[in-house]
């Protein structure tokens, strides 16, 4: 049952990792605009592989 010390320690580390990821993601600015990315993913770029730049 003493293994619970280890488990708690590990789970706190993982949880803190998630918090850090959250703060990093918000800081990167990706959530500042939440409607334009929704439009972007629906675009088809069929021809981009064919056209030469």
């Amino acid at each position: 049952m003493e293994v619970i010390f280890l488990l708690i320690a590990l789970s706190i580390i993982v949880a803190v990792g998630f918090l850090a990821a959250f703060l990093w993601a918000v800081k990167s600015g990706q959530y500042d605009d939440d409607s334009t990315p929704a439009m972007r993913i629906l675009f088809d770029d069929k021809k981009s592989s064919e056209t030469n730049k």
Partner: protein
Amino acid sequence: MPIIEEKTACYHCSDDCEDEIVHFDGHTFCCNGCSTVYQLLQDVGLDDTYANGPLGIKPDTQKIEELTYLDDEEVKESLLDFSEGTLGRISFELPAIHCSACVYLLERLDRLNKGVKQCEVNFPKKTADILFDQTQVSLKELVVLLHSIGYAPNLNLAKSSEGKHKADVDRTIIYKIGVAGFCFGNIMLLSFPEYLIGDSELESKWSTLFNYLNLALVMPVLLYAGSDYLVSAYKGLKVRHVNMDVPVSIGMLAIFGRSAYDILAGVGPGFLDSLAGFVFFLLIGKWYQAKTYSGLSFERDYKSFFPIAVNRIGADGQVNAIMIKHLLNGDEIQIHNDELIPCDCELLSDNASIDYSFVTGEAAPSSKALGNKVYAGGKNRGAVVHLRVLKPVSSSYLTSLWNNSGSNKTEEKPPLLNFSNKIAAWFSATVLSIAFITAVYWLLVDPTNWLSTTTAVLIIACPCALALSIPFTYGSILRHFGRHGFFVRSVEAIAKLGQVNHVVFDKTGTITIRKGDSVNFSGNTITAYQLLVLVNVARQSLHPLSKNFAQVHQKVGSERVIGFTENPGSGIYGMVNGVLVELKNPNKLSESEKEQFESWQPKVHGMGKTAILIDGRLHARVDFSNSYRPGLKQVVHSIQHEHGLSLLSGDNDTEAIALNNELIAGFDANNMQFNMDPHEKKAWIMDKQSDGNSKVLMVGDGLNDAGALREAHFGISIAEDNTQFTPASDGILTAESFEKLPQLIKLAKQARLIVMAAFALSLIYNIIGVTVAVQGLLSPVIAAILMPLSSVSIVLFTTVSSSILVRLHLKNI
């Protein structure tokens, strides 16, 4: 079989193909411009833009020549966000962005010009961030490109004067919510064994560990997430001021202190989950209240309306574009049709027709002659004119409206803040007294647990319900208003709207539709053919009345006009298929003609009277009258019922009779004032509010109302569409939502009732909690249940009540 009239629609802009149909690549277009853009897109493989239908915008090739000022280094420096080596970056406002096809097309701008490295669109803000290679494409070429595909950028003085790309969006509230949420969740989890298992050997072994972990987890909440409240309370108390953060801080510190003692002394688990949850909910409330609308600005001043540069004629006759801030007295400038005059000038051309509707509200343009003074803000409606600068831009008559320091608007406290401070003071005093009494009582009766009972009182008397009522009620109402086309600057502003007792309307553009003047004929009848001829002649003219006339009858077919002539102040004439038609200023008619003209009484009196002559003989009369917004009658009626109502117009009084008429508007004749210039409007409002009790709601549009809008307790600008300039105000009302105005005011007033009800609800929680606490029965479990329960129920109550109230008032409109 029914005959279906086939209307061909343009494949690019979706307008009906009226005058000409251009066929290209199997599609129909309304003009060469649209077909050119189609061709352009097809050449670079971007015809997927049309995947969901027409793009819906027309390209604009009008003002290309006037963009030479963009080559000027100083202008470039002021506009670009940064410029390093060969790369430059600029953020353009593109009001034409309206759909996902726009985003698709603009983000592939690099295919239209190799110099563009990257283009990122922000749809809600309607901006595009463009990174480009300055050696391959210049700023001017970029702007020309955008014009040619129909996305003309908004380049005005405001853009060139504001600082470099604004600092990052403030995200600290999100970080704090994240941290508080994280700690709250984990502390709750670690507290479960304590609550669920109760007394058992298992508990005592691990409880110390979990308690210390909780203590560690609550530190970021206290020192980071909740720090604003502590700091604000401290600052407030330093100046002997109790604000809502004071009871919040008392609660926070009491919980922390008691819990820290309990844990370190090993006597209990503390109440840390209540603390973390408490801070978490409060932060969410703060975030919810701070809703802003990207893409709208409540701060626009004249700079958003003025151009960046203007053409100056040098001593040698050469025309150069220079930034308007560099204009000096005595400079000679050249202003084209539809261009804005940037400063007070003297007219050097023989005559000019200047439209001041935006600035003073006069609907019809005024004719100026050589030597007359022309004010900044007017638009030139006619051929090119030359002007001599009399005053630099910043000291023009117009800008004095903003720099006017003679404002008597007292710095009254914002009503919501005022109200919540009062409640906070009352609440803190009550709680502290109860705690004091409890302490004294227990010290006398049974001092074993006196301290824990006293601290329990401080812990449970949670002001969080009080602190959440206002943000969630007003925050919800703010969002509902937005959905109904009324965008308010902040929650404080809604509270101010609820206080108004007198309403003032501007006329031109506010209760009238700017582009919708109605046209009434009287005199001899006009045949369809004659109308055709008239409209075609009118189409050639630049005068706004002619343009209005042409627009009202835009369905009329196209004919060739020969010999078109426009004499400012006199009229216009032209010949179509041998018929000579003239639209003439009635003051220029001969005496006998004038008599006949006056004998024809129009059904509705209007402001623009024009004589129609066919083949030299006076034939008919046309009156242009204001077209009023639908629902004006009901709006006036509803408002007059509850508040005082006045009309302040910059226009002349020809519409006074119509406005008094119950069927059209129903304004009281004594409450209408005309010919008011912007300073007079502002003074009127200042005067009205000086009695101490009147709080005025001003509804206006345009620069001519700017001073009045600022002076009024609450200012609303009416916007026909998103791209239109709206002067600084507390709220922006879209034209379609004009009919909802009385209900919106009523809702703002009733929001207060919801807050009161929420306060009452939170009071019930507090009474239950305190009753438990004074008896010494408070345990962490009870606190942990009661606190989130009260917070969540207040949030639900306020948001649901707001929705119900909004639906009740605005359902049928």
